[in-house]
């Protein structure tokens, strides 16, 4: 690492200490910044202030998933701070880039925030604690080993001396950064594992929370835009004569040749005028794509002779199926889905000379910065991405930053220094998403005379998010996001073969909450039930007997079965379904109890939702995530679909992309398990077992096995 880097880091230290009147304490840094600063005296995560408060930095994003609270809990625990003295502050994105990304990943996706940062966060807290202890030891002339730190108080029992953090902060900052620190035994955690109230909640109840859409700047102008309704299409020409005569209209511009934006003195005027811009679109040959053509393509993929085999294949599945007592085969279908977070896509960009400022709800500050560099050709270190709360992310704001690019290109058309806030309508948002892939699954299973699954085959046909969004080549021809759920079955099946058939369409694909795990369990866990029924066995016990080698899967499944009282007969007219999954490093299972009347009206009586995250930082937040994930899954199960006709999305707003509301909210009981030994994800795993458990219950109640979604197409509705 070069000198410049070190000097800018030192400058950072001085500045931050000067601003706060406090001291930043030191230790190891993540990733490549680590080498550059060994032996340096900065801790980029912990700052002790003279008034005894402790500022803990938070690097990732917050969109309601709660890690802005839970990640600092980890630091505070190892620091032995009292939670009351902790203040939480976002890491500045520009500083992060100037310091060679010292804070590690900011991108907030894949239920990774806690899993992937817990180690360096624990180290940060422990190292800062050690430096405070060393400072106390030298000040008091006592051995460090005799010093205790608890709840923000440093004490030496023998001499009776005691100090808060603030008084020792300056001396602590002078101490050498420990080479290594010993992390606590989980049994000694006192803040990890506690349901601390989320720090971002108070501003959400009085309207003061600032989302991307809320940013207001002097001299700001506003834009609404229309992108080619056919994916991949472009603008041939547009006539803005009429629009330009309307009040407040400033400009009408084409963006990237694929969209037209109207700029006005307020957003409503811009959006009204946009309706009057006449745009000629070129569909670029995609105008004929429809549900039917896509389905035909996928059906071909299910039968195609050439597909990419998966690495976990074992034994001889064909032979096992040939020898089986009974063989079952079934095809499953899951549709495209949109994210539809409540805050539509939008961004505010201001270009001032070489400097770019951007305010946008995002899951990826890195993505925002990268998109500014790409769109405007500016230097990374001249991009200032400002922090705001995201009004929901669910993966939409973590993959592509297309909306930020659009805002940047509009800003580039305006006089230097003019901030522009670009905001999509809900219709634009629904029709220009990066959708959850449509996928089909062809499953085959063979049973022996003892009701054991002896052979298993799965063909997964899906587009590839990685390939389409990122242009990434697929390792072994398999997109691992599309096949998660099939890569390592929790069931012990000696002979299995699974393969992936890449099936690209022109529909943009993206990471939708729970990604592959949002859809593969719909097929896998229902097919397991189909096999159980064929074997004449109870679906819970059928699963258990195939799980002899998977302790953790068994554990959560048993806990959930126990919580719903699986082995007791339900009340008359009630039926149950169960499913298990192992997503994002966690183990989740669900059981659903419901009744269905003759008209197909489903009444969900109860959902039991269980998760084992290994270690668990904030239990109440885990419960909130499970509740939310269940709502998410039930919406998708009942009504979720994005249909394509003439190359365009047919759905446009919440009237035709229906989401669950209060009146249909089921009763949810959560089972939290923290068996230790690993750190699992939270935001996404909750959804995975809900869909199949729900559909298994419907099959139990009605005898109808629903193999394609949504349920509304099978005559079902929700009470």
């Amino acid at each position, binding site marked *: 690492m070069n000198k410049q880097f070190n000097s800018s880091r030192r400058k950072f230290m001085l500045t931050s200490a000067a601003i706060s009147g406090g001291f930043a304490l030191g230790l190891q840094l993540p990733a490549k910044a680590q080498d550059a600063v060994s032996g340096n005296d900065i801790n980029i995560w912990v700052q002790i202030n003279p008034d005894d408060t402790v500022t803990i930095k938070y690097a990732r994003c917050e969109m309601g998933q709660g890690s802005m609270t839970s990640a600092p809990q980890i630091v505070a625990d190892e620091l032995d701070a009292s939670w009351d003295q902790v203040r939480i502050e976002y890491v500045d994105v520009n500083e992060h880039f100037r310091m060679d990304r010292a804070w590690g990943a900011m991108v907030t996706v894949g239920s990774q925030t806690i899993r992937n940062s817990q180690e360096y966060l624990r180290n940060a807290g422990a190292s800062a604690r050690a430096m405070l202890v060393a400072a106390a030891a030298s000040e008091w002339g006592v051995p460090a080993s005799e010093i205790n730190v608890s709840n923000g108080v440093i004490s030496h029992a023998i001499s009776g001396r005691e100090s808060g953090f603030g008084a020792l902060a300056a001396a602590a900052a002078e101490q050498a950064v420990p080479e290594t620190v010993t992390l606590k035994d989980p049994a000694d955690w006192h803040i990890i594992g506690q349901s601390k109230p989320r720090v971002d909640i108070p501003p959400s109840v*009085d309207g003061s929370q600032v989302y991307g859409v809320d940013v207001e700047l002097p001299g700001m102008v506003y834009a609404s835009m229309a992108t080619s309704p056919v994916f991949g299409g472009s603008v041939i020409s547009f006539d803005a004569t009429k629009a330009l005569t309307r009040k407040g209209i400033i400009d009408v511009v084409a963006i990237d040749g694929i969209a037209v934006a109207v700029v006005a003195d307020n957003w*409503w005027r811009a959006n009204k005028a946009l309706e009057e811009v006449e745009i000629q679109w070129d569909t670029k040959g995609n105008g004929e794509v429809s549900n039917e053509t896509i389905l035909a393509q996928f059906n071909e993929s299910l039968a195609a002779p050439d597909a990419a085999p998966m690495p976990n294949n074992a034994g001889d599945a064909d032979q096992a199926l040939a020898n089986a007592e009974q063989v079952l085969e079934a095809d499953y279908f899951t549709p495209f889905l949109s994210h539809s977070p*409540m*805050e539509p896509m939008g961004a505010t960009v201001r270009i001032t000379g070489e400097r770019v400022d951007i305010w946008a709800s995002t899951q990826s500050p890195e993505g925002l910065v990268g998109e500014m560099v790409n769109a405007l050709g500016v230097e990374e270190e001249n991009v200032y991405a400002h922090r705001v709360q995201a009004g929901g992310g669910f993966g939409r704001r973590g993959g592509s930053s297309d909306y930020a690019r659009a805002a940047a290109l509009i800003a580039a058309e305006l006089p230097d220094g003019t901030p522009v806030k670009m905001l999509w309508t809900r219709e634009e948002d629904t029709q220009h998403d990066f959708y959850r892939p449509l996928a089909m699954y062809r499953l085959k299973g063979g049973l022996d005379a003892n009701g054991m699954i002896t052979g298993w085959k799965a063909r997964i046909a899906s587009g590839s998010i990685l390939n389409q969004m990122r242009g990434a080549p697929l390792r072994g021809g398999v997109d691992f996001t599309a096949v998660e759920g099939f890569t390592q079955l929790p069931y012990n099946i000696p002979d299995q073969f699974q393969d992936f058939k890449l099936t690209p369409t022109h529909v943009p694909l993206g990471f939708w909450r729970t990604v592959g795990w949002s859809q593969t369990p719909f097929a896998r866990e229902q097919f397991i039930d189909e096999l159980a029924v064929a074997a004449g066995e109870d679906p819970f016990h059928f699963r258990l007997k195939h799980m002899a080698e998977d302790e953790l899967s068994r554990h959560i499944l048993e806990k959930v079965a126990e919580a719903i009282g699986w082995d007791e007969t339900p009340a008359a007219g009630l039926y149950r379904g169960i499913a298990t999954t192992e997503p994002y490093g966690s183990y989740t299972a669900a059981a659903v109890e419901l009744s269905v009347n003759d008209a197909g009206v489903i009444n969900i009586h109860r959902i039991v939702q269980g998760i084992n995250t290994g270690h668990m930082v904030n239990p*109440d937040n885990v419960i909130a995530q499970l*509740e939310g994930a269940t709502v998410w899954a039930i919406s998708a199960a009942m009504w979720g679909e994005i249909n394509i006709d003439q190359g365009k999305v047919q759905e446009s*707003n919440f009237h035709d992309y229906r*989401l669950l509301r209060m009146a249909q909210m089921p009763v949810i009981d959560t089972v939290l398990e923290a068996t230790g030994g690993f750190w699992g994800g939270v935001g996404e795993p909750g959804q995975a077992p809900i869909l199949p458990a729900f559909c298994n219950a419907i099959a139990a109640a009605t005898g109808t096995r629903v193999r394609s979604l949504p349920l509304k197409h099978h005559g079902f509705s929700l009470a």
Partner: protein
Amino acid sequence: MELRVNNEIHEVDVEPEMPLLWVIRDILNLKGTKFACGISQCGACTVHIDGEPVRSCSYPASAAQGKEITTIEGISLDASHPVQQAWVKHQVPQCGYCQSGQIMAAVSLLEKKARPTDADINAAMTNICRCGTYKRIRDAIHDVAGNTAENTLAYEA
């Protein structure tokens, strides 16, 4: 035209058909009221007009003249409204984007019916929450109402 918002009179120069939502957000710069659908489907834009919950994205500004408009910023000065406090106590919001609208709907429900039943809540609380916070919204409303069965909390006070 003249609009009375949160007990203050504002003179605004806007088209009569401009939805009240955009006057509130972009002209009066009160950002707590949110845009999410624009077609009266989701309730993110809920304000009170003469005490009634109204979806301001589909309500022309001109129709609000002479009426008392209350936004999320106007229900208390310091987040001290019992509904706001219950929202914090029950840790209701996730992303929070829908919650101004949810709170405005809940305040109105509780003003009309101090002890709402589950059925009352279902009927009055029709706003969409993509994060799925409905259970906690229900618990918080019951808590404000003093319907005690639901008051157990999983987190520390």
